[in-house]
Every structure is written in C-alpha cells, then in structure tokens.
C-alpha cells in the first residue's frame, strides 16, 4: 500500500510542465488533486516512471466570467471551490448542484476540475456535467494549444482525446440561454459513493412554454458520459408534460444507454433507475426554466 518509486517533478511554470510532458510523454503521470491517482499508486496498479505535480503551478486555479458571459474554470481549481463560488451558482448552477455529490468534503478539498475530467471515469459527475453543458476544454502542449468539445474529448473508459504530451488547462462553459432550467440527480448506496446512475439535465423553454431544447447526459451507464440525443430530439418542440418526459425517459432507458450490471445493481435495475431519474430531473429542470422566464 505504498507507491513504487518515481521521479518527482514539481514545475513552477506551465511552460516547464509542458516541456516535462513532452520529455516524458506516456511514462509520466500528471498529479493534480491526486484523489484517484494516489490510490491506484498506493495499490501499485499505476507505477509511473515520473510524476509531474501541478500543485506548484501558478495561474491554473481560477473561476471567472468569460467575455461572452459564460464561465471559465482553471484546471487546478479545487472542486470544493465550485461549491462556494457565487459565480458558479450564478453562471453554472448545474455544476454547483452536481459538485456536492462528488465523494466527500476531504476529497473535494484536494480534487480538481481538470483532474476529474482528464481521469475520464464514466462514473464521475463532472464529465457528464461538462458534456451536458457543452463545455470545451483548452489543451496545451509545448509550442501550442487547441480547444476540444467535451463530447469529443471523452473516448471511453478512462480514455480521452488528449495526447500524452498535452495538458488540460481550462474549461469553458457557454453562457446559459434564457429560460433554461437544470437538475443534477444521482442514486448511490451511500452518500459519496459512486453513483449507480446519475443524470445532468438542462431544459430551455420557448416563451410559450414549449421545449426549445433539452439536454440529458448520464453517468455510470456506459463507458463514458452518455448523451441521450434521441430523447432530447423527442422533447424538442413539445410541451414538456409529465407524459412527454415519461416517453423521453423510456427512450433513454431502452435505446440510449448500455449499463453494465455489478454486485449492487443489475443492468435492468440501472435502466429502471435511469427511467425514474430522467423523469424527476426533467420535471425539476422544467420547473426551474419556468421560474427563470
């Protein structure tokens, strides 16, 4: 239960960190909050030759309003800060609602936004939320950078679009459209446990009350965050009644997810949870959208 030896680097500038990544590539692991990486190193499931610790890097811990009215979050921003930051509650209430579901306060005090996204655990909250919100990520590498959309970023189980020499440095969320409601819900056996199923929902209403757009992203029902595009298309243009939401939930549960059963929840039970959570989350999101008109 102790990590194997590694070369330890704690660069004090982004440029130095990127140079180290270019040098070590896939032999190095990036240490952000360490709340997933250190456990697997303690178990020796991960034995990186080098560890590049980002915790001495200035300038990656920030939450600010973008010129477009959205939200920019630095990759090294602790998850705990998102719970406390009024700007997050204002510009990304879905994030504020989801974050308390991440493990426990002790974990969120260290765990970072970028770390959770780059780890790409399909049971994690932030990847699903980022996908639901159409976030985009800034990936830096020595001598350049690029932006990638959240939905394209997540490739599969613990797999992303990032090259070994790239570093996720910033998350950008677009401004919330008017008359948009949100809901994040999950079912876990105990508070702080991995969710058996979770959903991030956004609903934007027309002035007349019809659904302009719905956006549903799920965690723990596939090998990456799952976007329910068919259910969303079904809701668009409709009055979001309980019946319409139930029909959409049915589509999600039957057609759009591929849950794997485990010791505590069979695949059939996860489909059932998905159906129930979708209906509840849509109801809450529609109510909030109405309040925001």
């Amino acid at each position, binding site marked *: 239960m102790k990590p*194997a030896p590694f070369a330890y680097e*704690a660069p004090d500038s982004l440029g130095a960190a990127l140079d180290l990544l270019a040098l070590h590539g896939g032999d190095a692991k990036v240490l952000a909050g360490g709340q997933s990486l250190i456990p697997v190193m303690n178990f020796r499931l991960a034995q990186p030759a080098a560890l590049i*610790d980002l915790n001495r890097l200035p300038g990656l811990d920030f939450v600010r309003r973008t010129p477009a009215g959205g939200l920019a979050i630095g990759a090294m921003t602790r998850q705990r800060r998102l719970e406390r930051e009024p700007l997050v509650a204002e510009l990304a209430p879905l994030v504020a609602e989801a974050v308390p579901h991440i*493990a*426990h*306060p*002790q*974990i969120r005090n*260290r765990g970072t936004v970028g770390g959770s996204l780059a780890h790409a655990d399909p049971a994690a909250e932030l990847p699903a939320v980022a996908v639901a919100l159409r976030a985009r990520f800034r990936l830096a590498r020595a001598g350049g950078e690029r932006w990638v959309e959240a939905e394209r970023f997540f490739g599969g189980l613990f797999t992303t679009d990032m090259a070994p020499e790239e570093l996720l440095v910033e998350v950008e969320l677009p401004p919330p459209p008017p008359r948009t409601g949100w809901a994040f819900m999950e079912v876990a056996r105990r508070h702080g446990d991995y969710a058996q199923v979770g959903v991030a929902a956004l609903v934007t209403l027309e002035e007349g009350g019809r659904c302009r757009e719905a956006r549903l992203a799920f965690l723990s029902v596939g090998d990456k965050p799952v976007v329910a595009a068919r259910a969303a298309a079904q809701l668009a243009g409709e009055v979001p009644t309980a019946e319409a939401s139930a029909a959409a939930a049915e589509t999600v549960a039957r057609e759009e997810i591929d849950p794997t059963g485990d010791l505590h929840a069979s695949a059939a039970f996860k489909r059932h949870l998905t159906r129930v959570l979708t209906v509840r989350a849509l109801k809450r999101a529609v109510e909030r959208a109405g309040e925001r008109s």
Partner: protein
Amino acid sequence: MSTVRDIAVTVNGRRYERAVEPRLLLSDFLRRDLGLTGTHVGCEHGVCGACTVLFDGEPVRSCLLLAVQADGHELATVEGLAPGPDRLHPLQEAFWECHALQCGFCTPGFLMTLVPFLEENPDPSEDEIRHALSGNLCRCTGYQHIVDAVLRAAEKARAEAG
C-alpha cells in the same frame, strides 16, 4: 531514481525540516518521521477517513498526499487540538461525554473532519452533520453518538458565545 528531497512543514504550529523520498505518503511522514502517531492509517486509499488532517486549514486525507507536497504548507493533526495537557478540545470533550468512540481508531479522523466543519457551520442540523461525516468510517459505535457529540459541542459553543 527516487532521490531524497528536503522539505519544511509546519505542524500544529511547530516547524519541521526533514529529507524525504518523494513517494513517502504524508500519513507515513507524520507518523514515522515526526512521531505524530495520532493520525491513524486505515485503508490507505482514501476511503476510511482515519488519516484526515488539516492542510492549510482544510481537512484532507493524508494518505492521498505525498509528504513532498506539504513542503511550505501548514498542517494540523489531532495532537494539536487540545489546548493543554489536562484539557480537551470542546469537541473531544463532547465525544467523551456522549460516548462517541469505542476503540478510538477512527476518532482522530472524525475530529479533524468535524472541527473545521463546526467552525464553518456553528449551528448544524443533524442532517448536515451526517453529510459532513459521510467520508469517515467508524466500525464499532455506529454514528448516532458521534452525531450527538457534534450537536452537543455546537450547542455548548453557542451557549458560551451567546
């Protein structure tokens, strides 16, 4: 490949300078290098909460941090809670009065989680307390007496303040 690093940390107000291997966990550093064995090591993968300490005032799992990461930072462990050798911290006192511990293995982690919680939230509901201690496991008493102790400590602190 793993060369030793010099670090300086402040623990419970006292400064320590040591040379450590980068792979040394903060929990083992506190116990082995500093002799502060009040921080207990349970699961060593961030589940049980027994090793909780304060890192710059915030509770964290010391088994999920490397000692080198604490260089230049301020830590607090359970040894620093009591104001004197024959006096307990009010929360420790409440734990004693309410029978909030049996074997005591988990207690330091609970205390280091709940002391900052009470500072931030001096009038917590039972529900908020249960939420706050959800990251700490106790295998002998159950949690009811721990919840009672936190309610009692909060009540006493408010009575003294008010």
